[in-house]
């Protein structure tokens, strides 16, 4: 077969092969050696590079901006194409693999402290990354579901990996039960869509997209179809932790080992938003009038619930979990504008996950990669102890808060501009008020780090020394902080690149 047929799934192949390699080498080399960890990190970089290669390949194809592949490499079969390779899937792939890489490198100490089980952890990270990307390259709803499950099962295990920690089991079980429930809802939605359209494929001549643009949908089918779309949205809303499907996020973020939350929070967010874009704007794009109000409702609930929830938190990870609910809401506001909003959503998504990975890496450094808790007390006077870490965390907080000259401002501006031009002014006003209220808890972190004195020595369990940092964590933190500022001052290069996705 030609080389091209493998390219669309090359990053997944690399990641899966890497996972096997890591497990095998851990057996072969023994637990004292750490080469498998390096191999895992390199594999993620290889996958990211393959995604870049996909992008370049698509550029060289010129006008044909999107390629579809079935399992057999033939585009026209009864079922339609299985996998799609377009700029969108390529750029999401780059983001997912890089985020997984940064999450792994930034929390290298977790891999070290897990000892022999480190190899399993690295393999699970690779599997999760492959599954997440599969959600976005799938042009078939069942394949999308398989990607979702591959990633989810790997992440359920990762959530429970720090078994000695008290909350880790709870986090894992909660994540698993609620996640399975969401998966079931999602697959039921897929079944209803199949019942309504007679197709599982998104693209192709018999695909869902084609069905909506040609078939006058019979009255009896509309209810089934809309119910299917709604259930699919609910299933994915769970993954992006949009309210009211967000309850798992705070407990899981807090319970899981701090070093593993980066991937769980950032990677899943990228993939789930990507899948939502693929389904809503790709498959159901012509039914936008039906799903847009639902998305607006989810967006409003998310920004309000996330913001109010975050205000009272005493734990940085819980606060970040609730704020991630609000951020999901901010991104969902732009969905109402349709496909034109994709670059804005992606910009918001990427800048947010950069800040999020940076923030969780700081949590890993300050509160320890294996522990679950990250009480605000531990951050008292952090600025005195280690000004660079405190400064970086402040940058992430200001970035997420949407202060001008930080990346979050450009992202917020872009998604809100889309929502306003789609006529959802009320939505933007609610979101903006929530984003200002959000400043309260972002600034609180800054206050704690900069304004309060160092933690009192008599308080038990509080660190007064400068936190120890590995080279990897330092690299990730400074890179993320640098990007958060750089993309706030000169966002245009990334925005221009993202416009190719359209």
């Amino acid at each position, binding site marked *: 077969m030609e080389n091209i047929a493998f390219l669309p799934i090359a990053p997944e192949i690399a990641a899966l092969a890497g996972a096997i390699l890591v497990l095998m080498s851990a057996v072969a080399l023994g637990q004292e050696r750490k080469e498998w960890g390096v191999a895992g990190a390199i594999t993620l970089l290889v996958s990211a590079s393959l995604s870049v290669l996909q992008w370049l390949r698509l550029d060289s194809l010129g006008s044909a901006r999107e390629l579809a592949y079935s399992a057999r490499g033939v585009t026209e079969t009864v079922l339609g194409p299985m996998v799609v390779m377009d700029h969108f899937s390529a750029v999401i792939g780059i983001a997912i693999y890089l985020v997984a890489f940064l999450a792994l490198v930034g929390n290298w100490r977790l891999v070290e402290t897990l000892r022999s089980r480190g190899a399993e952890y690295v393999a699970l990270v690779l599997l999760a990354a492959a599954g997440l990307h599969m959600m976005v390259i799938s042009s078939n709803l069942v394949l999308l579901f398989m990607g979702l499950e591959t990633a989810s099962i790997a992440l359920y295990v990762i959530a429970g990996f720090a078994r000695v920690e008290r909350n880790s089991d709870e986090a894992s079980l909660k994540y698993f039960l609620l996640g399975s429930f969401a998966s079931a809802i999602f697959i039921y939605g897929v079944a209803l869509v199949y019942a309504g359209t007679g197709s599982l494929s998104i693209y192709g001549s018999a695909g869902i997209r084609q069905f909506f643009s040609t078939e006058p949908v019979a009255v009896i089918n509309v209810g089934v179809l809309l119910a299917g779309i709604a259930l699919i949205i609910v299933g994915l809303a769970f993954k992006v932790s949009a309210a009211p499907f967000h309850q798992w996020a705070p407990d899981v973020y807090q319970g899981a080992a701090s070093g593993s939350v980066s991937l769980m929070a950032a990677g899943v967010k990228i993939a789930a938003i990507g899948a939502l874009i693929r389904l809503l704007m790709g498959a159901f794009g012509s039914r936008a009038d039906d799903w847009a109000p639902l998305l607006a409702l989810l967006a409003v609930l998310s920004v309000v619930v996330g913001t109010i929830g975050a205000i009272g938190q005493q734990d940085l990870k819980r606060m970040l979990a609730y704020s991630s609910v609000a951020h999901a809401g901010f991104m969902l506001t732009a969905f109402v504008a349709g496909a034109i909003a994709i670059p804005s959503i992606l910009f918001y998504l990427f800048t947010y996950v950069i800040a999020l990975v940076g923030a969780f890496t700081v949590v890993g450094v300050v509160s320890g990669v294996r522990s679950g808790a990250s009480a605000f007390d531990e951050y008292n006077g952090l600025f005195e102890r280690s000004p660079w870490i405190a400064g970086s965390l402040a940058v992430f907080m200001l970035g997420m808060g949407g202060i001008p*000259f930080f990346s979050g401002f450009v992202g917020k501006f872009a998604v809100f501009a889309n929502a306003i031009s789609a006529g959802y002014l009320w939505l933007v006003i609610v979101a903006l008020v929530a984003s200002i209220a959000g400043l309260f808890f972002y600034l*609180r972190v800054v206050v704690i780090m900069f304004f309060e004195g160092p933690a009192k020595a008599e308080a038990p369990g509080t660190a007064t020394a400068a936190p120890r940092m590995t080279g990897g964590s330092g690299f990730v933190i400074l890179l993320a902080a640098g990007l958060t500022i750089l993309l706030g001052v000169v966002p245009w290069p990334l925005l221009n690149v993202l416009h190719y996705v359209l």
Partner: protein
Amino acid sequence: MFPTLAVMILLPTLAALVVALIPKRRSELVYPLALALSFVPLAMVLYVLWAFEVGVPGFQFTQQVLWYEPLGISWHVGVDGISLLLLVLTAILFPISIAASKSVEKNQKMYMVAMLLLETGMLGVFVALDLLLFFAFFEITLVPMYLLIGIWGSGNRVYAAVKFFLYTALGSALMLTGIIWLGSITGTFNFTQILDVSLTSTQQSWLFLGFGIAFAVKVPIFPFHTWLPDAHTEAPTAGSILLAGVLLKLGAYGFIRFNLTLFPDAAVRFAPWLAALAVIGIIYGAAVAIVQPDLKRLVAYSSVSHLGFIILGIFAMTSQGLTGGVIQMVNHGLSTGALFLLVGMIYERRHTRQISDYGGIAKVMPIFGGLFLFSVFASAGLPGLNGFIGEFKILLGSYLRFPVAAVLAATGVILAAIYLLWAYERVFTGPIVHKENKKLLDLDKREIMIVAPLAILILFLGIYPKPALDRIEPAVDEVLQRIEQTTSYTVPHFGMPDDLVNMGVGE
């Protein structure tokens, strides 16, 4: 053409970088270097002042670079007569504030970095001609100021800092909504292009409110003023000077630049309401200032009262009122800046701001007493000093449109004299009751040098305001012309002989 304004805005940021890179073991360099570098933007601003062509309408030194086409954002800057003097005020107040911060011990390097970044933001606000650029600068000034209050403030500083930040940020959120909406209506964020688009009356009303609340919080107009006394009181001396001197002016400037110019129809309709709130602010601020036991809080409340005058002048929408409003922005920056500076100096010596802890200290600190009295007179609007000309023009201008408001506001002048002179009397005159005050040292040469530039400018603008007025009036008349062209409003003029009016305005 040389991008004068861009360099002017970026110089303080570069200075901040230089200061940030000073290694810890050479920390004694921080203060002198920051002070020296703060004179570079001042030199740039003075060059702009010198090269600015008087009497030419429109913006000068304009520079426009398309920044991002799909969203219609450009780097567009320019100076006109309204922003020119505010730029000069900003650039003068920064070296003074930095010089007044020599005794800051806690992390002095970061303090200076925050100050210099603040200068970039403040200079940027006054020259930005792209709405998003304006918003970005407007919002970014919050962060260094928040840190200045929160880290280096006194007493209840964290509460004051958070309150300050959230109040102003909430206002800005509404403005950002307004900006995005305006952008989606007009298809551009460029100020000069938006001028050509005619907005409907309803659109103007909503946009006026969106922008107006942001500026009203910043000014602050009663009832949005409650953040101000806390922030002013808890901020370090330099923070108070810059808050009163520049930050409050961002709001008043925004009212003129955006609310009057872009939404003239709504401005005409809302003007009586704003004038009413301004008068309430004038009298309320003065009344609360009278009973303040805390000297710094007293000056803070006097700002509420003085800013009421400025808003009254702006929304009188007459040539005299608007000119008076602009010149009074500068005056208030100078005289209140001087008062905060002096209060800071006495606080450094005695570590108390309570008026009752002082008394009779003019005997031990004659120079300090003299300078304080001078600033008090300037703030109270004594003829011959700068405050008089501004307040007089404002009262004259507002009398044309809102006679009752002008009469009520005039009582504010009397109240100002009461609270300022009474405070002076309690602090400086009479016998020394507290024995700690007996050995207070008078101002040294360095401190006198810091206050001197302000005193000289106060005197200069009081005696010879013509250079300033010549630059403000064409810009102000342009704003009023636009209002007359786009609405049915006619700017009232005096019916009395011209020479009488001119005699009054002191030219």
